[in-house]
């Protein structure tokens, strides 16, 4: 890049900036919405990264300069910037902001756009030292940058044409083996098939298959990946010629990448914006290194934004997408928003707590205005359904609406969190997640024990880490241990059980790694089986027909399970309990294996995140990560900082579920109206308006019972008449629940709550929507007995079903429709039917 160009830019920008600076002097910061010309003006600059510590011969760091403008956007102004170094002996910098180290020392870097400046400190060390070779970094880096190990090439589950590489070089040892030893990869076996012909030739390095294929000299389905003689070619050639080392042979630890970071993590572009991404590696020696030129970039949604091979993002159309960055062994993402235009008068939006700070902060950047706060009537129905799974009774709605206390929403939240219905509802939620059923626990007695443990845990608001500990490590004959006691006394299989617990408590789906390394993540098959082995001592004591005890017994005295040795399907070797970082339990540690596993789970940073996301999705109908238990680097959260913050908050509160829920329902974000405005109608993932959520089968059924005041499907005592209180749903099959997607709890539930044909049939002809309407003793029947007017009846049903009164124009029409019918009761029944089958009723909105 020529310096001339950069100078031209800075000159033109400079004039504008000067003018603005004068204005700034006269106005306070808030008044700075627009300058008189209508063009947004530059307010301040900042460097990304804020500073750098370079190490090693030829070390380089790219700097980016971001300018904050008067319209609230931050723009990449690197190509308009003058870069000034305090010491030209120690480093050089080009127009694109790429600083290269020359000699050890410290220096200051200044960016100048017009009169606006910013500064960064740079330290340089080891400028005459070469870092030790690492196959994982150097060769893995090339294979990643050139796309050789992408999912649709050799990085796929089966590899390509017999040659298998791990995706993103996440398993460099294996990649090294397949390159150096050769052989055809087979998915389900550790053995190579076919002749083992090495893909390198140290004697005649340039004849190595890996080079001939990559340069297109030999026929290659993937075409030419780099030119003969290019720097990547030379690097591989020299590596082969030097005997193709892995990099740890000398005993010296190779420097590996611990993680990568992208700057900026979030950026919003106008129609003509552009954004350079910077990628920095955190190295195992504690240093950091610029990797911007050594990674691949991919836009998750090319219809929103494109990214080129240099990491420059350009907008396509308004929306939001993640840009995925892959480096050897690692992946990360940045969020890019594209907006049509900036809003001239973005309103002042006030938050209530930290949730709002993040959600509203992001909305501001994205130029989306949140909807108004919901009305008290909307709030009371919404929060009652969300916290207690129950519609508010009509008289409580009136009380709440009439209460003049400005803090009445928080007061109501407090009441609901302490209510018996809270216990009912969250017992049901966790009974679903933890899978309580007659089939699952081999009988209603054990299902009830397990369920009662959940209920007690919810009632006493037991810390969630303790709940997880108890469920995973359960021993003996108690509630949580029944989870391990399946029908016929079967014990769960170690890999299935491990994968389920990880999915439930850590929000990760490891199952792919049961048969092969995870195709998209850094989970290896070895890690999968190492974790499974923590279930290797699971044992059942006793005989069928009597109460059996669950223990971890390494000696295998139990009748079933008896030291179920966990065998690696590929190596056919017994696997020892091993944590994902490779540490196996020592012989002395190998008691109470599930206790070790439970501690690993509950102490893992994922633990709090996973629960926060699960609870969040219940209150908003969408997780910060979606699907709710599919955290992946390729599936980043919509609000990463908020996720981290809530997880930390949850942890420091002592894993207090009620604390987390209170935080959520007190936020303004939760209390937004369900009516979108012109700026947020299209918003799917930023919580700018309250999206209606279909009620789950049990809650909807209970709501219908509550409105009609007709119960009786489940028999039994008063507290068992609600569907949410069913201990073992498989003992109470009910068509309504089935067609509305009740979980059978055979696997970790994933409710879809989609409309379907059976629901439509049931609404028209089914018992739930026909037999309850005017039943003797029900709400309608009693109101008719009491000589109540049509209007009063209409109002009563509206209050209990919708927590509101009908609109003024609705009442008259309804009255007329009822009056014109010969049979008043039939007419009213039909009105109640219409309410029960309406979307407004079936939604929490």
């Amino acid at each position, binding site marked *: 890049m020529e310096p001339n160009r950069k100078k031209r830019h800075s000159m033109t920008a400079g004039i504008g900036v000067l003018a603005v600076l004068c204005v700034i002097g006269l106005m306070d910061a808030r008044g700075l919405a627009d300058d008189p010309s209508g063009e947004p003006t530059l307010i301040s600059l900042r460097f990304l990264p804020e500073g750098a510590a370079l190490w090693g011969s030829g070390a380089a760091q790219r700097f980016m300069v971001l300018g904050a403008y008067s319209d609230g956007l931050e723009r990449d102004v690197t190509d308009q910037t003058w870069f000034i170094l305090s010491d030209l002996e120690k480093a050089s910098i080009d127009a694109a902001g790429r600083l290269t180290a020359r000699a050890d020392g410290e220096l200051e870097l200044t960016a100048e756009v017009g009169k606006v400046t910013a500064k960064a400190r740079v330290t340089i060390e080891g400028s005459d030292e070469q870092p030790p070779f690492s196959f994982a970094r150097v060769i893995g880096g090339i294979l990643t940058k050139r796309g050789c190990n992408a999912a649709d090439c050799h990085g796929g589950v089966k590899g390509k044409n017999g040659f298998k590489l791990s995706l993103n070089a996440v398993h460099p040892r294996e990649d090294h083996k397949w390159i150096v030893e050769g052989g055809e990869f087979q*998915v389900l076996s550790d053995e190579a098939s076919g002749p083992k012909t090495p893909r390198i030739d140290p004697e005649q390095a340039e004849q190595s298959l890996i080079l001939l294929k990559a340069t297109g000299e030999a026929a290659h389905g993937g075409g030419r990946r780099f030119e003969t003689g290019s720097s990547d070619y030379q690097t591989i050639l020299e590596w082969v010629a030097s005997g193709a080392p892995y990099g740890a042979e000398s005993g010296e630890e190779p420097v590996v990448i611990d993680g990568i970071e992208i700057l900026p993590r979030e950026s919003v572009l106008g129609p003509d914006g552009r954004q350079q991404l910077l990628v920095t590696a955190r190295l195992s020696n504690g240093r950091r290194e610029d990797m911007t030129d050594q990674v691949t970039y991919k836009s998750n949604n090319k219809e929103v934004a494109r990214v080129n091979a240099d990491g420059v993002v350009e907008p396509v159309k308004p929306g939001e997408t993640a840009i995925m960055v892959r480096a050897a062994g690692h992946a990360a993402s940045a969020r890019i928003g594209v907006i049509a235009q900036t809003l001239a008068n973005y309103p002042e939006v006030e938050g209530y707590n930290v949730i709002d700070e993040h959600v509203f902060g992001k909305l501001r950047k994205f130029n989306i205005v949140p909807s108004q706060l919901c009305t008290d009537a909307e709030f009371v129905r919404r929060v009652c359904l969300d916290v207690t799974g129950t519609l508010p009774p009509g008289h409580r709605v009136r009380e709440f609406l009439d209460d003049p206390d400005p803090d009445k929403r928080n007061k109501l939240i407090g009441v609901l969190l302490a209510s018996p219905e809270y216990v009912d509802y969250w017992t049901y939620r966790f009974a679903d997640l933890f899978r309580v059923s007659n089939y699952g626990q081999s009988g209603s007695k054990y299902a009830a024990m397990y369920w009662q443990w959940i209920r007690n845990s919810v009632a006493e608001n037991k810390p969630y880490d303790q709940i997880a500990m108890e469920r995973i490590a359960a021993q003996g004959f108690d509630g949580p241990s029944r989870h391990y006691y399946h029908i016929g006394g079967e014990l769960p299989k170690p890999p299935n059980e491990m994968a389920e617990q990880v999915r439930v408590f850590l929000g990760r789906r490891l199952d792919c790694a049961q048969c092969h390394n995870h195709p998209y993540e850094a989970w290896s098959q070895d890690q999968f089986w190492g974790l499974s082995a923590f279930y290797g001592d699971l044992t059942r004591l006793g005989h069928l027909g009597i109460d059996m005890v669950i223990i971890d017994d390494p000696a295998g005295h139990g009748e079933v399970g008896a030291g179920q040795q966990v065998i690696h399907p590929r190596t056919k070797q017994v696997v020892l309990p091993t944590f994902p970082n490779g540490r196996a339990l020592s012989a002395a540690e190998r008691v109470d294996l599930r206790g070790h596993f439970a501690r690993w789970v509950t102490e893992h940073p994922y633990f709090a995140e996973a629960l926060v996301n699960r609870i969040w999705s219940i209150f908003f109908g969408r997780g910060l990560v979606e699907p709710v238990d599919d955290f992946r680097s390729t599936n980043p959260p919509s609000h990463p900082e908020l996720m981290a913050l809530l997880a930390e908050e949850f942890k420091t509160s002592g894993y207090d579920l009620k604390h987390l829920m209170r935080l959520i329902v007190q936020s303004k974000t939760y209390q937004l109206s369900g009516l979108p405005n012109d700026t947020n109608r299209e918003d799917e993932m930023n919580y700018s308006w309250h999206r209606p959520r279909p009620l789950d089968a049990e809650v909807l059924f209970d709501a219908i019972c509550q409105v009609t005041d007709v119960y009786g499907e489940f028999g039994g005592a008063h507290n068992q008449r609600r569907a949410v209180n069913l201990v073992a749903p498989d003992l109470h099959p009910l068509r309504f629940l089935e067609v509305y997607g009740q979980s059978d709890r055979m696997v970790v539930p994933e409710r879809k709550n989609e*409309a379907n044909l059976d629901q439509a049939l049931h609404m028209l002809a089914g018992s739930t929507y026909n037999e309850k309407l005017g039943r003797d003793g029900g709400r309608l029947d009693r109101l008719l007995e009491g000589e109540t007017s049509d209007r009063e009846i209409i109002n009563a049903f509206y209050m209990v079903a919708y927590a509101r009164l009908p609109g003024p124009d609705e009442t008259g029409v309804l009255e007329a429709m009822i009056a014109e019918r010969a049979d008043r009761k*039939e007419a009213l029944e039909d009105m109640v039917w*219409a309410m029960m089958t309406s979307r407004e009723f079936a939604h929490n909105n």
Partner: protein
Amino acid sequence: MNEPDTMTESTCRNCNTPELKRRDFLRVGSLSLFGIGMGQFLAVQRALAAAGIGDATDRAKAQSCILLWLQGGPSHVDLWDPKANSNFRPISTNVDGIRISELLPRVAKHMDKLAVIRSMHTEEIDHPEAIHYAMTGHRQNPAMQFPALGSILSRELGERAGIPPYVIAPQIDLKLYQDHFGAQFIGAEYEPFIAPDPSAEDFQLPDLSLPKSVSVERVEQRRAFRDLIEKAYRQKREIAEFGKMDIFTAKALEMILSDAVKDAFDLSQETEKTRERYGKHGIGQSALLARRLVEAGSRFVTAAGYRGVNPWDSHAQNDSEHRDKLAPPLDQALSTLLEDLQERGLLESTVVIAMGEFGRTPHINPDNGRDHWPHCWSMVIGGGGLRGGQVIGASDERGAYVAERMVTMGDLFATIYKAMGIDWEKTYMTPIGRPIKLANSIDDKTGAPLEELV
């Protein structure tokens, strides 16, 4: 939508069949509501197929498939592959050289319509896994769930005449097993329509008839109330679910108000004689229902009339179970089904299969039972243009292992697909981009159609 003219003046070059387009026949199919019967529809379609018009599906002979599902695993040496280690005698059939067990005397008279595969080899040895394998062709996998054959056929062939394309009657007894018969990632619209037990006295589809107190007029009045009550809520929001629910409601109302679906499921329209001919037991009545359904338009019907969890699972008293309880209803239902389909001209367009999830051990256990045996077992398949009257593959002397021509579940699936004009080498993509073979054989291979059959 712009519909082209339903029938043009011109005629096909090589025949006298009016040149019709496939779409027109779909339309004729839906006209069955208004009096054009399925028989006529099929006759026209056959004429069309002969003329070589339409896509592969139209040219294929087979339009639908009936599976007599024998869950639990029938003993192959006691039924289809008679051996010295069975206590039942072999009998001759109406095809020279083919002998089957004396437990199936009536089926023996229809051997010309069936092929016996005696070299089935599958990979799962316990019920849940094996049922999953038989329905999907895939080994169970915790990372994902596979779509069942019936759902795939629904998707590939589509609905006819408003009749549910994929039906199971009655529901599989254990919910855990029932899940293996579903559509999974390919879409809720391909889930099976599950009917109650057709042999029950009060057999009737749930929610398909309005309660007596609710007239059609009243349904309209109810909808008028709802239109009013919902109006404000819907006007202010644009939610995809609204549209979906409206479509389902219209469809539901059509099903309730028209007679096509109700008639298809109404066994009382059959004569008592026919009902008795099939046998008034679970498998007999579910086979009869299956015939009614394919006649009306279904694509894949699983007649799962043997009730209880794994009814064919004869770990104890194998011989008396097979002789007294299990084989006679199968003999009656299968032979009648083949006769009946033939009489109605439906056999050529309907593939008929009878099988379980595996076979049973060649040896007898201490409880006089036989245990699970997936290594080599037998099943029968016929109709749908497949060549009957033959034996495919062979087991060894005791029926323990495959001696000749191993046949996998993937080969069986591929055969059915080919008979129906579906590309058996096709794959579906899962939401995370994993390709799933429609006909999955062992060792990650694709199944191949049995050339002897199709």
